[in-house]
Each structure stands twice: as C-alpha cells, then as structure tokens.
C-alpha cells in the first residue's frame, strides 16, 4: 500500500504518471488530491515556461558552408543541400511559430472560440448533423456514449477535426478527435479554467477530453476520457 510520501515523490518525478497504485491512493487521500491539483497547475506553467518564443527562422545555413573560393563539386552539393534545409526553415518560419505551441494550449485556445458549446442541456444534436461530422473523419459513436449536445467539424492545426460536447453526470465534456496529432503518452492539463487530458489512441492519433471549471477533478476527467475512447469506433 503506497503512503503519502511515496505518492508525492513519484508524482514529483512524473506528474502524469498513471500507475493504478497511484490512482488508488489519490482516490482515498484528500491531501494528496489537493497536492496533485496544485502540482498539475505548476506543471502547466512549467510547460508554458519551457516553450519560449523561438525566432521564425535561422540565418541561412548555406552562409556557413558555401566557401568564398569556387566550390568543388562535392562542397557545392553540400551547400545546395544546406540551402534546401535553410530555405525550408526560412519559408516555413511563420508556420513553425504556430506549430511550436503545445497541443494542450492549442486545444484550450480553440475552446475560447466556441463558448456556446458548453451549455448544459438534455437536447441532443440532430442525428444527421452528428453523423455528418463523424463521417467527415470516418468515425462513428456508440449509441451509449451519452447525449451529444454539440457537434462541429472544426479546423484545428490545419485539419478538420470532430469537436463534440457530451453531456455527463458531471456536466458537459468536450471531446476533440485528433486523428492527426500523435502523442507518446497521456497528458493532463489544467489551463485557463479548463481541465483535461490528451490520450494517445493507437493508430488513430489522439483524443482531447476536457471540462470547464473546478467541479470535475483530474481523475474524473480521465475516467470520462476512457469511456469516450471506448465509445468511438474508428
């Protein structure tokens, strides 16, 4: 049985660790629950702090490798190769700046653009509308997924992604099916009033599930994420 010191030490080493023994301890320990919430808020700040703004492009790489004298064919080839890299880096500069932000931060930013999605309601979105959104991404939803009160096909990081709101006992939960965003492991976040998790889905990118406000704790969000994941048919 894990004690509080062991739990907190493990979590300080990896705040997103999801070992069953950790979850079990957290579920039964109020203080460790508070510790986790505080640590995740700090972690969210830490992630933002590490993502320092980067300049859109580097000085042309070719400037370093193109010699002043007439280049030998071999050197010329390297210079050309370097120029291709440099040109790509410079041309892609603005795009890079945009893609440099974290996935969680982008998901949270996206939420701000559709506040109407968050209302608590029993009225489901019309079947045809939901089907249309899901079909755009070649997925479907099990009938027992819950009431889907909002469905939209949203532009996100250059792709169209299903943005759904499912009504649960804990309130509305937003789901973004991120078929093109691959993550190595689950990542919890608590940012700008949104609490959520991004979970990897083998062979199908990832899934972002988030709630708004402090009424649902991180463990509950993860439980909801698991249920949603099981309800999506890829």
């Amino acid at each position, binding site marked *: 049985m894990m004690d509080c010191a062991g739990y907190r030490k493990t979590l*300080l080493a990896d705040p997103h660790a999801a070992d069953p023994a950790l979850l079990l301890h957290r579920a039964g320990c109020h203080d460790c629950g508070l510790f986790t919430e505080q640590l995740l808020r700090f972690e969210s700040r830490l992630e933002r702090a590490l993502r320092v703004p980067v300049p859109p492009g580097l000085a042309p790489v070719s400037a370093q490798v193109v010699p002043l004298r007439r280049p030998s064919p071999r050197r010329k080839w390297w210079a050309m190769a370097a120029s291709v890299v440099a040109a790509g880096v410079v041309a892609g500069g603005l795009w890079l700046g945009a893609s440099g932000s974290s996935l969680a931060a982008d998901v949270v930013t996206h939420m701000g653009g559709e506040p109407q999605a968050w209302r608590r309601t029993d009225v489901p979105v019309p079947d045809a509308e939901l089907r249309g959104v899901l079909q755009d991404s070649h997925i479907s939803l099990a009938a027992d997924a819950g009431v889907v009160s909002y469905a939209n096909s949203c532009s996100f990081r250059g792709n169209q992604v299903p943005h759904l709101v499912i009504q649960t006992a804990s309130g509305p939960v937003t789901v973004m099916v991120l078929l093109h965003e691959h993550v190595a492991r689950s990542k919890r976040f608590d940012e700008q009033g949104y609490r959520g998790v991004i979970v990897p889905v083998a062979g199908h990118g990832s899934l972002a599930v988030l709630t708004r406000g402090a009424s649902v704790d991180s463990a509950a969000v993860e439980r909801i994420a698991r249920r949603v994941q099981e309800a999506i048919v890829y």
Partner: protein
Amino acid sequence: MKDQVGGTQKRARFQALCQSLRPDLLRFALWLSRDRALAEDVVQETLLRAWKSQDSLQDEAAAKPWFLTIIRREYARSFERKRFVTVDVDELVAREEPMLAAADQQDLGELRAALFKLPEEYREPLVLQVLMGLSTAEIARELGLSNAAVLTRLFRARRRLRAMCGVDTSMDPPE
C-alpha cells in the same frame, strides 16, 4: 528516373521533419546552453549534420531521440571549441532577460529564471521530459543513466524549482 523521384520525395519528407522539430530543438538547445546565440548555432550545426546523415535515420518515429543525440553531441563540441571557463548564472539571466520575460508572458519570467539557475544535471532531464515528451526510459538512454537515477533527478528538479518559485512546498516529501 524512378530513383530520382524517390530520392526527391525522401528529401522533402526529411526537410518537413526538420521543420516540424526545429522549434522544440531550438528550445531544448536554449535550455541546455542558456545562451540563445549558442543555441541557434548548435541547432544549425545539428540540422546540417542530420541532413548529411539522414540515411541513418531508419524510422521517422525515432526522429526526436535521433536529433536529440546529435544536438547534445554538437553542444558538447561547442565546449571543446570555445573552452568556457565559469558561468555566472545571474549574468546569464540578465543577458537573456528579453526572452525570459517576453512581453506577453511576464508571469513566466520568474519560473524561467529559476530554470536557468537549476543545475544542468536536473535541468536537462526535466526539459527532456516536459518539453520533448520523452519517457523515463528514453531519458535514461539519452543521458546514460538508470531509470531510478532519472526519476530521482526529476523529483529533485521539481522540488527545487517549486521552492525557488515560492510555491507552497509544505506537502512536498523531503529529498
């Protein structure tokens, strides 16, 4: 002709890979070196070396650790070339002030300065975990440490960082 097209496609894919990884590689180099100019040099050299040896990258899924290995090697080489003597951390913080407290992120300035002051043995695994998304085992491989040693460093890194930032650490376990 077919080979030429295949080669062009392969190069284009590699170029796209470089582009997508570059922001985080630059950030990693920056947190490693704590010097923006040096970080840019290291990343530039890294991209060139990567370009030259792109055939040795067999699996694109393993690209991130592959680039990280090159970048760490390049960073070590920069020491050989320049022979740095001592590092005054306060001076480093002052020098990089515009970046540490970017106008729209002033709330993060204190945390970034604290990261600068964190010893490298704690800072590097933390950046690999939080920024680069590496697992404990991947960090252990990259740094040549055991998993347990990595976890201890990560624990100490966060504990010290929180204390430096004035976070309430009354619930933190002792080192």
